[in-house]
């Protein structure tokens, strides 16, 4: 039995400890907003927050996560889609196919939480998720929009 804290809920899951956190989230817990894209922490589609830090869950064994660590998935970013990053994504009509966007949003939310006023260079170096539809222009615009609103930040 592995104990996990996901989206504020304490959960017990029965799973082999080598299983990547991604697949525990998708298959044992049943939350499918977090995506499989590569399995080798290259594309970022599997990005979740662990204690607020954007983490690629596809290459992280579930045994490496403790029950004290707070895991947040796209489903738990906000109860109603009201997180400023989600709202900016809607305003800028960012997603195309949308498959990578859970990871993009989680990466952007973590970036803005730790660096509320990122420069374009900060965004370029931190947002390394892959989008094959090519939404990068809008991703950048949406992040800059949130930053200009100053709604996120530590404290």
């Amino acid at each position, binding site marked *: 039995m592995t104990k996990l804290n996901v989206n504020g809920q304490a959960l017990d899951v029965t799973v082999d400890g080598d299983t990547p956190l991604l697949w525990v989230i998708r298959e044992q817990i*049943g939350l499918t907003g977090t995506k499989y894209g590569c399995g080798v922490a290259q594309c970022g589609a599997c990005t979740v927050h662990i204690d607020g830090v954007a983490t690629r869950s596809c290459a992280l064994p579930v045994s490496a996560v403790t029950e004290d660590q707070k895991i947040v998935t796209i*489903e738990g970013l906000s109860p109603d889609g009201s997180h400023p990053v989600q709202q900016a994504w809607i305003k800028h009509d960012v997603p*195309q196919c949308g498959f990578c966007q859970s990871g993009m949003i989680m990466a952007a939310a973590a970036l803005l939480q730790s660096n509320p006023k990122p420069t374009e260079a900060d965004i*370029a170096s931190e947002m390394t998720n892959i989008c094959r539809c090519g*939404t990068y222009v809008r991703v950048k615009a949406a992040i800059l929009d949130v930053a200009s609103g100053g709604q996120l930040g530590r404290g």
Partner: protein
Amino acid sequence: MTVSTASRGFRPSRRQMLAGSAAAAGAFTFGFTIPAGAQQAGVPEINAWVVVHPDDKVVIRIARSEMGQGTLTGLAQLVAEELNCDWAKVTTEYPTPGQNVARNRVWGNFSTGGSRGIRESHDYVRKGGAAARMMLIQAAANEWKVPPAECVAEKSVITHKASGRSIRYGQVAAAAAKLEAPKDVPLKDPKDWIIAGKPLPRLDTVDKTNGRKIYGMDFKLPGMLNAAIKDCPVFGGKVKSFDAAKIKDMPGVKHVLPVGESAVTVVAETWWQAKTALDALPIEWDEGPNAQVTSESIAAWLKEGLDSPQAVVGNQVGDAKAAIAGAARVVEAVYSYPFQNHACMEVMNATALYTSEKCEVWTPTQNGEAALAACAEASGLPLAKNEAYKIDLGGGFGRRGAVHDWVRQVVLIAKQIPGTPVKLIWSREEDMLHGRYHPITQCKLTGAFDKDNNLTGLHMRISGQSIVAGIFPQNIQNGRDPAVFQGLNPPGPEASIGYGIPNLLIDHAMRNPHVPPGFWRGVNLNQNTIYLESFIDELAHSAGKDPLEFRRGLMKNHPKHLAVLNAVAERAGWGKPLPDGVFRGICQTMGFGSYVAAVAEVSVAPDGKLTIHRIVAATDPGHAVNPAQIERQVEGSFVYGLSAALYGEITIKDGRVEQENFDTYEVMRLEAMPKVETVIVPSGGFWGGVGEPTIAVAAPAVLNAIFAATGKRVRSLPLKNADLRKA
């Protein structure tokens, strides 16, 4: 209606799956109602395209697949425009392929590729909306006993002007549904559009921001098992043997099964268990006759085709060979373009349920009818006993259109475990090793100048792979694949060359390696535009002329091509000063029904590092149905095109693909993304595509700018292999 169910026999439509996807942690709750289509309980359709609910909710049926390109929103705009409905009340749904077959293909073609979603169906979907509006008005007029011509409809409300009476669409929908469809259905002049032609937000954005959207990979059925698969890594090879006993006791493993002659699957409780066990499964392959093939051997074969006396002519004017023989000066260059993987973010996947009575497949597909056909072929059941349900795609780019190899696989698996639903998900490695790759070609171009420095002739010899020969061999006639000449065709409405050259010969020596080709977003326009537009640049420099002026000189009889080229040059400020170290390149082409052009601004550091600062792209798609989404498609097309130009390369060793994941098959990330400015210049009178054409101008604009910056002409893609350091 949302019910929890543990039984089978339901048919969740896409929307109902969405309802189910918000399931609480650990729960397997689904929202099910009756399927999309004719059985809308108590809500009869007005016609195949339009259902109006009593509360005025409008359901617009969409036959093409949404994969990010925005066709769902654009097609809905066209229907809603003619329907005169309230856009805020519009939702959409997919009819199933089986319903289309059963209803004599009332929704037409499901195929979603070639940028044809709107350009091929605009007429009949608008007529669907217009006919529904006429029937709704007729129903109101009947109730009021007035001539329908005295009534108008606006925002889902019908008004009889003379009496001031009004009624909502939802109130007359049931009566309208019983009326005969009108025969003469006039359409609006696009200049009168109020919904179409507007930069509206997409209809499908919100669920893509909160994790609720269900992709094929996320789809679940009660009691479902999960499958991982390995196909012989050498194309054309087979499974010799596998030792199921070695893994049968691994956690969760239920079945270890052959899939056709070339693949093995492990079916387990979870996909991770299936993949883990499959990785541990000893498999012996019979690699077959292609095990010695390499990229080098393929390149040598294609090179031989550049001078082969055997070739099929695609476009011929005058006598190019004579012009070259009699030229005062000849310029010659050889270009090459590699295999590339589509690398959709969502790997191939499908869910199937087989019983002796029926076979059903749920899958992301660009062509639901082709998915249905693949299902029927693999199941062996009569067509009517099969059904395919479309799920929105996590990227398509051509991979999920013409060939449904993964559907065949999942059905072959499901057939071996009848009554148990099974979801097959490819690993990224499987997806990389078993693509339907961008075709590989080389091109030799020879240009002839007379003593007065006029271009008198051009011979363009393409050697290499034919997609059509690989996928639809029945369409090859007299050895000719017409698609090979995309962008190089004689004057006409599709993919025509934009230059008037007095002596022109474009021919193709077909060479089909064993690596399976596919339609890859932009298709053959991609490499053909690189070849022609780079070489036109070479000719311009050779003649000592400005690349824009040189092109203009050849385009007098191609006004649409020229107008777009001029539009992009003007916006980019062609000829105006640039910051130190920044250089421009320009190009144009025509394909998928649209005219496109681009200017790139780049700099190259002394160490060879390329920076793309700015792209200006222009497109004339005839009619612009949603300018905001066109801008996004153009931006995205540059990511796809520049990913290909900078990094995209699948290489072959020992008959198999060498790249297995994004660490060795690089794609563009945000860091490399230039600013993109889109210039939309719809000239009307035709309907062109949007998703693909501008991909083709991404690479040549950059390549020509690199030449301006460095004097180096990169003729072999991708750019990552080129040394751009100052000589």
